[in-house]
């Protein structure tokens, strides 16, 4: 197993008129070949910013302040846009949040996939590309004849599948799936995620899942990183996080979502408003909403502690939680 992607202390800030927004603050993680990781957090916590940093698709006012993103051994941060274009899709593909609008309405869906193929493999003829798209369609469970339709002639689920097919078009080593199923109904969500997982296993790709739904992620990702206010607050393999959440925020997150499988639990909402990333304070960012906060928490930013093997958490009081959750459970 060798690492395909490594983030080292990534800092990505937005410059706004109101001040600096720290969308990704000291984010680090390693992703190995064939492995999948889930980035979980509320909306606006910086997960999308991380994925956009990896793709280097940042808005004008966003800057990578420091840190490195190694993809396949090369630091993506230092690449020129042209070099980056070679990595995009061929190396890292992406499945977007809003599948509905991710396809250009004025071109045929098949052509949009072919466009990606020919952009990276100029030697592929049009017919070969079409055949590849056809097989991809079969792989994601679409009728290849629908290739020549326009996006508006697809249903939401079909569009999502088409996007998945598109992401696979250039055999990327890594796929970032940003909320791949949010817009779909629950049954379709499940099917698509399962298929995605299956394909990932089959093709031995690495995968980053991004979602606000920890339950969904836990089923498909082998590891999970919980993000809060631009920082990763807890990271471990899915089972560990799901069974033994250490960070108060993780606990809250899990209670926020009904689980399809697990026992019926009362839904607990996390009190307070999501944090404002503007002018981040010098202490634990979860403090205002944390029921377990002590004076200590208001004074410093907690560093990562490895509470069990490969289970990192940035909290001053992780132990207490574990007990409490287990009692409740």
């Amino acid at each position, binding site marked *: 197993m060798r690492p395909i992607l490594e983030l080292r202390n990534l800092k990505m800030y937005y410059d706004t008129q109101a001040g600096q927004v720290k969308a990704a603050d000291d984010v680090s993680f390693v992703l190995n070949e064939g492995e999948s990781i889930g980035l979980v957090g509320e909306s606006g916590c910086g997960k999308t910013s991380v994925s956009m940093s990896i*793709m280097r*698709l940042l808005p*004008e006012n966003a800057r990578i302040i420091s840190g490195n993103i190694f993809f396949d051994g090369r630091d993506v941060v230092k690449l020129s*846009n*042209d070099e*980056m*274009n*070679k*990595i*995009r*899709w*061929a190396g890292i*593909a*992406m499945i*977007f*949040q*809003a599948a509905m*609008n*991710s*396809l*250009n*309405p*004025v071109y045929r869906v098949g052509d949009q996939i*072919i*466009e*990606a193929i*020919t*952009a*990276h493999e100029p030697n592929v003829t*049009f017919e070969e590309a079409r055949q590849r798209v056809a097989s991809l369609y079969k792989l994601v469970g679409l009728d290849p004849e629908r290739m020549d339709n*326009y996006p*508006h002639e697809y249903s939401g689920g079909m569009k999502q599948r088409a996007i998945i097919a*598109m992401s696979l078009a250039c055999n990327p080593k890594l796929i970032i799936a940003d909320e791949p199923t949010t817009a779909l109904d629950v049954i379709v969500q499940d099917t698509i995620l399962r298929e995605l997982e299956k394909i990932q296993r089959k093709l031995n790709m690495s995968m980053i899942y991004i979602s606000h739904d920890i339950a969904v992620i836990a089923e498909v990702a082998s590891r999970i990183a919980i993000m809060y206010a631009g920082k990763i607050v807890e990271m471990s393999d899915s089972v560990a996080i799901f069974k033994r959440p250490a960070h108060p925020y993780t606990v809250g997150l899990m209670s926020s979502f009904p689980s399809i499988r697990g026992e019926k639990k009362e839904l607990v909402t996390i009190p307070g408003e999501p944090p404002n990333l503007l002018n981040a304070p010098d202490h634990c960012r979860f403090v205002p909403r944390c029921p377990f906060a002590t004076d200590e928490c208001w004074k410093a930013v907690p560093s990562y502690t490895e509470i069990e093997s490969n289970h990192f958490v940035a909290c001053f009081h992780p132990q207490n939680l574990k007990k409490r959750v287990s009692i409740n459970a």
Partner: protein
Amino acid sequence: MMLKYIGNRILQIAILLVIYVAIVFFMLHAMPGGIKTLLISNPKLTPQAQEAIIRAFGLNQPLWLQFVDYMKNVFTLNLGISFSYYPTPVWNIIAERLPRTVLLFTVATLIAFFVGFASGKSLAWNRGKTTEYVSTVVGIITYTIFTPLLIFVMIWFFGSFLGIFPLNQFLNPDLWIHTRLNAQIVFLYILMTMVIIGAVMMVSYLMALRFSHKESTKKMIFYVSTAISIVFALFLWVVSPIGIYGADILWHMVLPVMTVTIISYAGNMLVMRDSMLETIKEDFITTARAKGLPDKVVRDKHAARTAMLPVVTNFVLSLGFVVSGGVITESLFSWPGMGMTLLDSTLAKDYPLAAGALIFTGIFVLIAHLVVDIVYAFLDPRIRY
């Protein structure tokens, strides 16, 4: 499906036209002071003479009867007889002036469209840069400047100060007195050349779409066939005896075209810029970038292609209004086209001619509306009829 839709639209357009003609007709007849007023200001006319003219124009009939007659005639393009050019039919006058206006303003509108499209595109793409800011402000200024003001300065600068371009008229009499050629014919030939080149471009584009899937091959087919047709047309013009006369007309067109372009490119530019800014924020643009497509491809193929829809509407509709001509431009550049006709007929109280010019513009605008619908169906697959 499409044909049925077009059929429906044409029917709708015919109804709209009837209403439009009715409005124009009754409005002009409701105005105080008509041909009678005109005649009476000539002290040498006897009452009998006035009577004779009124009879000749059918002004002694009841209004509704005049209207029914008029309506019948409009559909056969018989727009009545001009007062000031009596007894020339209005249609003849329009047919004489139309090619001048159509040529001048089609060329200017086309240039303005492409300049506006390209500059709007790059403005939106380079949002936030100083050049963007300056170009936008300059664009807004040329867009809102009082047209005569700009023309005065253009005439002064290019005509009087530099003395490069001819200022007045659409041809040079010193050249034309040696020929029996009618300028109208030359105008029609130039327009025909433009239409043929346009058709070649269209056909080659469709052929390119059909026969190739490679972007570069498509472009090649398109550009090569366009270039061949232009070179061929130029060759024909150069060897033909009327070539020099065509060139003379084009040379006289330079300054007015430049002016109209300056006035109207900004409208297209600003629409394109806004539309483009909205499009850039669409998710499919992010997708296109993520696919690793070169910047230029993302901008042109994805953003501009989708953003161009409102600009195309703008463009086609303004082509419809080409017929009415720029009254100001035509009058200040001595270009006797439809705009001048409208102004002169108004000042001369020539109702039939003014009404004819208005109605003709209406017909063109209606056709433009139809064209917009069809073009939209081509450009935007979401629209199906």
